[in-house]
């Protein structure tokens, strides 16, 4: 029987199962295969708690979602078209998100009485009609892999564990993805354990063939490759992209990279990634806490490395005092905050954009600092590179805001040519630069930047510190006029960065009725919503800030070109507060604080509300 192939533009798939079911891995493999096909895509993992909860419980459900398409894809999708549910708990937790009429692939073997009860189902939803309105494929996955692997030397537990590969195989068939890359990958991963590799491959193929052969499936879907710019691509998470951006900046500046960090969800992968790069001369220092993380980085910066510290909300809070030290000593430093839900420990594995005000103004005294935010996983690379460049150019700490959604989510990254990445020119004074009266550690260049003199350089011996310093000489000073001067210089240094910010890009017309202004990871959802509005003929444009401190110099003018401004944020209105202050005008806000990103439709609705 020849099966129907329907061409679609995009699809959103969610894999859900028990924490032990390997859903993150399954999702990642599907993602790689999809990337290789040439679709654009975005992914997002979703796991509820850091500890592995008991098997089969709602708390133990782990999920992975991706959206892929033949056009540019800006988000991992709002509601999935297809849900893979490896057990009753997974179905319970995720069913509410499934699109109306969506497809469910369930491992019916897992729908035992015990599991059903644990998940809070009164009866078996696969059987009692409660899934009416969905297309349900109830498949005995455990049994099928058991049969297919009858003769393998794996234990029955080992065999059972391959069922995720079965599901993956079905999905590969359903969405016409190649299985070879995963085959290869499995062989590599289980190099030492070929029978495990082969078992998994068999399971996957069994799933694929199951789709191809059995009659329950009548249709598969094709998604043409996207019209992405020419070049080499790989899939990348925001956290890995940050790590790469920093390494790239270090190399382009001829510096060694030093990371002082303390593990914290969802930022730890930056530390993990960088700790594998010893052969790139990367020094990772897992400090005793976040304070020591940033303090060691400040020390490394003083001693001449490109220094970085990475963290999330509670850790950022702990770094507050030391950030002040970096500001007053005017040392280059990149501070990465992969934001998560709060306050306090809050929702560690959930995303939020709510550390903006903390970044911009959240410390004692007038202590301005440049702050930029990445808009998608690949953009994390560019932002990290830019943060490092600005830090060294202006001798200042810089805060880079990412979030759990960007950090752990992924998307294709067009691999830049290392040679065409901009060089970062760093000038260190030499012994010859000590004048007659000695070296002046707070002398100023045209950007009011002070020199970066490296300990070990003869003749430039000098002292810095957290007490207010006299301009130029760097002597301790408690003089009133000098304090005003230094406060003003520190503020101006941040404003000077405006000269490095390119003109803002507007998606849509440069003037009109409504400007949707965002920052950070809302970019995708806003983009989709604005696209839909434009398609409906509404006068809506999108502007997305990379720099939130300082604001780009064209911001005010652009805003003046619109009757209304809407700021959607995954917080209670933090950019809005800053912007109302800056523009002294009313601004519409759309705020959610649910530990998850916007759905494009929510922004669309708000646009409609404003435009009436």
């Amino acid at each position: 029987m020849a099966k129907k192939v329907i061409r679609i533009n995009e699809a959103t798939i969610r894999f859900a199962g028990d924490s032990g079911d390997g859903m993150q891995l399954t999702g990642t493999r599907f993602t790689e295969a999809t990337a290789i096909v040439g679709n654009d895509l975005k992914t997002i993992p979703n796991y509820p708690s850091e500890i592995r909860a008991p098997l089969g419980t709602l708390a133990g459900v782990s999920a992975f979602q991706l959206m892929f398409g033949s056009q540019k894809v800006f988000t991992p999708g709002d509601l999935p078209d297809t849900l893979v549910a490896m057990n009753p708990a997974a179905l319970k937790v995720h069913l509410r998100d499934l699109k109306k009429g969506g497809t469910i692939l369930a491992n019916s073997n897992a729908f035992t009485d015990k599991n059903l009860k644990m998940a809070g189902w009164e009866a078996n939803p696969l059987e009692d009609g409660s899934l009416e309105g969905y297309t349900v494929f109830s498949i005995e996955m455990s049994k099928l892999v058991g049969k297919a692997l009858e003769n393998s030397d794996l234990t029955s537990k080992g065999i059972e564990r391959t069922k995720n590969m079965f599901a993956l195989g079905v999905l590969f068939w359903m969405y016409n993805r190649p299985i070879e890359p995963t085959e290869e990958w499995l062989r590599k991963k289980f190099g030492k354990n070929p029978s495990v590799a082969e078992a998994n491959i068999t399971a996957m193929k069994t799933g694929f063939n199951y789709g191809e052969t059995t009659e329950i499936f009548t249709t598969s879907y094709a998604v043409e490759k996207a019209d992405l710019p020419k070049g080499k691509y790989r899939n990348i998470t925001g956290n890995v992209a940050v790590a790469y951006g920093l390494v790239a900046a270090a190399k382009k500046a001829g510096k060694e990279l030093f990371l002082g960090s303390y593990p914290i969800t969802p930022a730890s992968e930056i530390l993990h990634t960088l700790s594998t790069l010893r052969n790139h001369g990367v020094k990772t220092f897992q400090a005793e806490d976040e304070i020591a993380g940033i303090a060691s980085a400040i020390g490394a910066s003083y001693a001449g490395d490109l220094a970085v510290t990475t963290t999330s909300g509670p850790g950022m809070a702990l770094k507050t005092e030391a950030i002040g030290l970096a500001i007053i000593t005017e040392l280059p430093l990149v501070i990465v905050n992969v934001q998560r839900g709060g306050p306090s420990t809050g929702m560690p594995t959930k995303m939020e954009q709510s550390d903006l005000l903390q970044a911009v103004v959240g410390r004692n005294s007038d202590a301005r600092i440049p702050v930029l935010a990445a808009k998608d996983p690949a953009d994390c690379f560019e932002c990290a590179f830019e943060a490092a460049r600005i830090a060294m150019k202006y001798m200042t700490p810089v805060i880079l805001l990412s979030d759990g959604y960007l950090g752990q989510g992924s998307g294709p990254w067009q691999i830049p040519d290392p040679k065409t990445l901009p060089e970062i020119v760093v000038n260190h004074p030499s012994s010859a630069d000590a004048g007659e009266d000695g070296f002046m550690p707070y002398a100023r260049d045209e950007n009011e930047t002070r020199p970066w003199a490296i300990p070990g350089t003869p003749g430039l011996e000098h002292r810095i510190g957290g007490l207010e310093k006299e301009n130029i000489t760097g002597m301790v000073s408690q003089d009133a006029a000098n304090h005003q001067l230094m406060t003003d210089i520190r503020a101006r240094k941040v404003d000077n960065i405006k000269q490095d910010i390119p003109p803002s890009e507007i998606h849509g017309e440069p003037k009109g009725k409504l400007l949707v202004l965002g920052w950070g990871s809302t970019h995708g959802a806003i983009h989709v919503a604005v696209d839909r509005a434009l398609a409906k003929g509404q006068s809506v444009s999108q502007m997305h800030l990379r720099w939130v401190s300082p604001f780009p110099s064209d911001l005010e003018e652009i805003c003046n070109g619109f009757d209304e401004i809407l700021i959607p944020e995954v917080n209670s209105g933090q950019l809005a507060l800053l912007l109302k202050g800056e523009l002294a005008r009313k601004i519409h806000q759309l705020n959610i604080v649910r530990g998850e990103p916007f759905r494009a439709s929510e922004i669309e609705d708000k646009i409609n509300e404003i435009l009436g």
Partner: protein
Amino acid sequence: MSETNIEIQDLNLTRKDFVPGNEVRWCPGCGDYSVLANMQKTLPVMGVKKENYAFISGIGCSSRFPYYMNTYGFHSIHGRAPAIASGVKLANPELAVWIITGDGDGFSIGGNHMIHALRRNIDMNIMLFNNRIYGLTKGQYSPTSLLGAKTKSSPFGSIDRPFNPSAVALGANATFISRALDVDAKGLQESIKRAQRHKGASFIEVYQNCIIFNDGEFSDVENKATRPDNALFVVHGEPMIFGKEQDKGIIMENHHPKVVQLGDKYSEKDLLVHDETNQIITNLLLEMTFDTSNPTPFGVLRAVEAPTYDEMMIEQIKAVTKIKGEGTLEDLFYSGDVWEVK
């Protein structure tokens, strides 16, 4: 382990090279002055170039030290000097890094960084000015103040049992621990030299008199007349003898230190012999600290060898590079599954 008499003069440095132009601003009579002078005297002969010294401090009277050393210096924030210094050393392993701290800076707010720096055995030297008081903030008790101490924040006497800083250092697995006295130039210089030469984290506890807020705290050992009977200066391999007449010694009895009179009953060979490398001996000396029936031990209490963090970092970089080759951006960028859009 004990070549402290070999001085390396060939860099032609003198004390003057380490004295900056600005005024020293401690209270007249403060014990810090003597420590500064001995540091400035000792560093020139250590065979380290002046530009390779970096002094990192926290906040406190003592932590102003870097301003008075004409070297690289960083007067940072309260308690964080060991962490900052760790970054300095790892970024630039050539440097001879000194951490200057106080009993408040190093053992109150900074206690954690202190023990972690010691544990990691990063090759740095930590000098703790223990005056048993918060000097800079005008006289509150510190974690080394004795029970009952009447201070601005303990007007009825402190109820906070004190730390013995050197014991904390031992608990943290420190490889070098030494104790010195602000007024004892010889002991200070010996400690400074030994610490500078020790590979790994060195900890020097200096008993320092704060003339303004805690004057006389150490009078029993500061006073030249009473010092010989109250202080025990230990030397590796030598028996533990003290007293104005060098007539008293230390033995171990029932796993406790005990003072004995040399003469009829005990002779020198009954005494404990100091062994810098033995943890039990160090522990025994530390047990004597707050015990008024025993003299207070000074000198190098412990010195053992262990791999340093900074060396291991360099070695690991080398080893991985040897296996994987020096990483390029191409390697890095192409390390995942790559596809091409043509």
